[in-house]
């Protein structure tokens, strides 16, 4: 059985101007110890997918319209609040993009670190502090004992992100959801943090969902990658297949528009137009208006994710039809 099995998750936001279908029919599985990357541009629904699983969507205006998220036999979308709270922070942890706003500025780091332990485990304070010290050391924070008594503002951005990781992993979760954990950091610090998450993953054997807008970050980090656009999954495959045997025109266009260091200074490939207005998304495939390969039926038929090769699914209607014709 998979560790996490998300089926047909749909999340909407009911705003004054209309309904925004931020996530539509998203399904994926995650095995124990596996790393899944969710890639997409802003507004593609990658964060909302994670927030929905974690029960962090404010309702209203948000609403989970349907679907299931089975985590080890429990449907996270339907279970009681108490049950959810016993899983969150203990078996599933989350780290966010901006460590400064995720940490409490009034509490010393030590207090914040031991809080999940005191809540979820029968443990006395001194043991909890010992575990926290161990965790800070493992997260690469020097002089951990002094640091325990410091406040978040006394840390640099990279150090704060290390504290967040230590806090998220102190309960030894089975799943870590990392929502753009390095986007606010400089590249040299980003490299340190990604290395740290990988090291901790090896030690704890946990599964990781890494949300990122950066295909480069995902390429070195994930076993599998899911590409999202306008609230839907466009392509999902093993990382190598996604890069070397791309099946969706959006993934290809995204890859080509990244200014990679290895390329010569030629004109960059651009995707014409802009992502659709999510208040009134176009009918059919949401990428069709910008797609080089779009044909008449792309703007008419509803898309769905179909496997076109082993463990390789795409939502591209053309690719699916060509595959069926063969």
């Amino acid at each position, binding site marked *: 059985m998979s560790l996490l099995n998300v089926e047909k998750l749909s999340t909407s936001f009911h705003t004054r101007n209309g309904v925004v279908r931020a996530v539509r029919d998203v399904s994926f599985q995650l095995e124990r110890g596996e790393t899944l990357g969710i890639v997409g541009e802003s507004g593609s629904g990658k964060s909302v997918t994670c927030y929905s699983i974690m029960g962090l969507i404010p309702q209203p205006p948000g609403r989970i319209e349907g679907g299931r998220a089975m985590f080890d036999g429990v449907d996270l979308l339907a279970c009681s609040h108490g049950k959810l709270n016993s899983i969150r922070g203990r078996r599933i942890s989350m780290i966010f993009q901006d460590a400064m706003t995720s940490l409490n500025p009034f509490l010393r780091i030590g207090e914040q670190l031991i809080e999940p332990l005191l809540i979820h485990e029968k443990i006395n304070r001194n043991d909890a502090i010992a575990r926290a010290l161990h965790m800070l050391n493992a997260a690469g924070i020097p002089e951990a004992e002094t640091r325990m008594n410091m406040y978040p503002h006394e840390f640099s951005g990279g150090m704060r992100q290390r504290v967040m990781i230590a806090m998220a992993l102190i309960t030894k979760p089975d799943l870590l959801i990392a929502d753009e954990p390095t986007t606010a950091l400089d*590249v*040299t610090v980003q490299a340190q943090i990604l290395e740290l998450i990988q090291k901790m993953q090896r030690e704890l054997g946990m599964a990781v969902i890494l949300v990122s807008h950066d295909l480069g970050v995902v390429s070195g980090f994930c076993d599998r990658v899911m590409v999202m656009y306008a609230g839907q999954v466009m392509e999902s495959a093993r990382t190598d297949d996604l890069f070397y045997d791309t099946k969706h025109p959006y993934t290809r266009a995204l890859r080509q528009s990244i200014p990679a260091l290895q390329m010569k200074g030629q004109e960059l490939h651009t995707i014409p137009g802009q992502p659709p207005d999510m208040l009134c998304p176009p009918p059919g495939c949401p990428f069709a208006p910008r797609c080089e390969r779009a044909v008449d039926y792309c703007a008419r038929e509803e898309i769905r994710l179909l496997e076109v090769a082993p463990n390789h699914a795409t939502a591209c209607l053309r690719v699916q039809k060509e595959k069926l014709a063969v």
Partner: protein
Amino acid sequence: MNPGEAFLEVRDLKTHFPVNKGLLFSRRVGAVKAVDGVSLSLRQGEILGLVGESGCGKSTLGRTILQLIHPTAGTVRLEGRELTDLRGATLRRARAAFQMVFQDPFASLNPRMTVFDALAEAMQTHRRIPREELPGRIGALLEKVGLPPQALRRYPHEFSGGQRQRIAIARALAVEPKLLVADEPVSALDVSIQAQIINLLARLSREMGLTLLFISHDLSVVKHIADRIAVMYLGRIVELGSATSVIEKPLHPYTKALISAVPIPDPRREAQRARILLPGDPPSPLNPPPGCPFHPRCLYAEPRCSEIVPKLEPFGAGGAEVSCIRAKDVNPP
């Protein structure tokens, strides 16, 4: 302009921000040396990429060159004219020659002005243009930056981030400047939109002979647009050279680490390459380390690195310059 002098010539530029303590009887306790002795020169029509991590002083350098911040010391000469001496109305008039594009197109446009008004205002700041000529000129400007003519009557909030950045670029170009400083112009944009703006800036520079100082934290973006790249660390330039030589044959230990940290969107290459992990964070510019500012994180540092302040000096035959006293040991022939 003296013969042989570059189009833009920056010499020993320093921008220090005083740090004061106490409210009533405040006294100066130190200075943030945001820019600390930078020399640069740009040829006409050249694109220089300025890269560095947050806090390295790259934005302050850009703003100081444009006299938005007054330098503590040093000179900035544009076509032989000294800019740092200019004040008041003279400076205002001189600004027609140099303009800036900012990172956040949501903050840099007046939300209560239509695109037409915003562009007309910029155009008329420096020149008297008959009203009847305005629509034609503004229309041409819009076309140049790739916006539809219907955009004229609309307000900034009606546009996406990428289109807003096009408006900001059009506004900077409205006065027909010779030098454009673009400070992280694509950092707030999604990758698919980023590429459009990078291509636009490259094309404008080519077609209009515009000299461009392109500031970014993203080496891959800079590599794509720049002729030459300057790498900054803690207020100083540590390496300067052609875009290909800096990316493919980095000389300074910091540049090497920076390049090795940029993720490659290619799983096999990413798995194969050796990554140089730098220890620690960049130090505070309030209290920079003595000697070479990079030595506490440098893998090649030796005792004398904390004593000698390195100078940017030519290295090798390719015209590259590096500021490292161990450059020869770090880059064996």
